């Protein structure tokens, strides 16, 4: 299995980072899109808000947003690309399963994420001022990040499973990738959002890791008590993951029975 995962890693790494200067162009493109949406936010900030504080705030929002995007486009949409390239049938027929494939893809995604965050940090430093990020609680940060990865994997399994069994197309994924971070409290501290939205966000497993990460990097306390956020968040993330695995397996069984739905190319 390790050999297979390494082969996948090498293939994707070369394709995404080395060939055609993909890393450079990818970072430039992402930085420009982020700039397009982040800079206008400064129009809301009064003279009392320092550039560095704004940068720190923007950086954590981008961190969570990019994580959601990674799950949507690198993990869930990958299944759709496999269908488009006519490869999904071979992956299933090979009997290797999806674990070696994703064991190879996930490190590439995380390396990409690391590069992206570095680029965003530099960009924010140049445009607004160096983000004042102070790790308030490293243990909580580690728990928050681990929880976030578990929740995002679960989300990718549900979204990817739905995509392969229903033939759901890119536009749906695009809309989800915008709405989900807003609706689940991924972008802003739940303290600052209206009560209704706060309740909706807390009913999802996404809000807990986001609150923990914000607390550990910005010092903004979660709306619920810290230990409660850790306990409930961890349990919720675990349960969500189990449900997602069951759902994904069900969808695989469905396509094995019914065949893969024809979907639009883009």
């Amino acid at each position, binding site marked *: 299995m390790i050999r297979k995962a390494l082969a996948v890693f090498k293939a994707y790494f070369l394709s995404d980072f080395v060939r055609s200067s993909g890393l450079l162009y990818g970072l430039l*493109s992402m930085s420009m899109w982020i700039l*397009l*949406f982040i800079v*206008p936010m400064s129009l*809301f900030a009064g003279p009392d808000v320092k550039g560095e504080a704004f940068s720190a*705030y923007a950086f954590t*929002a981008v961190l969570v947003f990019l994580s959601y995007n990674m799950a949507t486009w690198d993990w869930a949409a990958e299944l759709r690309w496999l269908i488009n390239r006519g490869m999904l049938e071979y992956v299933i027929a090979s009997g290797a399963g999806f674990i070696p494939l994703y064991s190879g893809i996930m490190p590439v995604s995380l390396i990409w994420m690391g590069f992206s965050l570095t680029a965003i940090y530099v960009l924010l430093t140049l445009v607004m001022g160096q983000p004042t990020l102070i790790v308030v609680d490293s243990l909580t940060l580690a728990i928050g990040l681990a929880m976030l990865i578990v929740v995002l994997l679960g989300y990718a399994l549900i979204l990817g499973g739905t995509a392969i069994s229903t033939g759901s197309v890119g536009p749906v994924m695009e*809309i989800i990738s915008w709405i989900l971070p807003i609706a689940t409290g991924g972008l802003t501290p739940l303290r600052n*959002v209206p009560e209704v939205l706060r309740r909706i966000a807390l009913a999802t497993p996404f809000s807990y890791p986001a609150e923990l990460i914000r607390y550990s990097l910005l010092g903004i306390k979660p709306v619920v008590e810290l230990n409660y956020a850790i306990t409930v968040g961890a349990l919720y993330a675990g349960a969500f993951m189990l449900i997602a695995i069951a759902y994904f397996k069900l969808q695989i069984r469905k396509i094995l029975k019914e065949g893969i739905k024809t979907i639009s190319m883009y």
Partner: protein
Amino acid sequence: MWFVEILRAEYKLVYAEMFRRKSMLVMMFLYPYVLTGFTLFIGYSFGSKQVFVERTGVAPEIFMITASFIILSMLASIDDMIWKPLMDLWHGTLPYIIASPVSRVMLYAAIPIPRLTAVIIIGSTSIIPVYALYYGLNGLLTSLIIIGLASLGAVFMITPAMVITGLVNTVGESWRVINVIRPVFMILLGAYYPRILMPIAGLIASYALPPSHIVELIQAFLRNAASTLNTLSLIGIATALFVIYAPGGSRSILLWERKKVKEGVKYD
């Protein structure tokens, strides 16, 4: 083949595609609201409406829905042109297009025009209801003027987009380059961040883009600061730039075409 015939064919293609792909149609309705919600949500969570109004002279809801509408209108009408050579390459239809008797310059100039319909669709489901809610009946008239101006802006974008389409596909045929250029265009339009607030380099680059003058006019219009002289001068500059880019656009497409004829179509 006459320009009108090409235009008719493009119209048929666009409408068939638009109504076939319902998810795209739904996205057209949703996207301006999603982008507006996104920007307002983050903006309000750490800043204030008062500060925003002081800086831009317009309420954030109106400013952001207008900005989202402008950005999506530009993308809806120009994106297909920029991507067309690559899409044709990937679909395997490029050799047939190159071999066809249709003028490539006319074809690429015609592509955005049917897509201007999308501007009206996006406008009628985004700024018309929001303006009507904010300004009542006057809002309806204002939104129709803004839709007209945005359509004009999209038309003015055709010639610089032709320059870019030809050059990018001549040099590298890389979708990665296009993915960098698109957001840069969107930033330079000044729709989300008024160009008057941009640093000097950004301001100069923005002035070189014809539709950015229309965007400035739209923003002045929303602030009730659009005098007749201001309106005419901004439209005049945009028109002049549109004309200036035209020969470059034509040459750029011909350059790409000549390269294809000389070297053949290469598949990645």
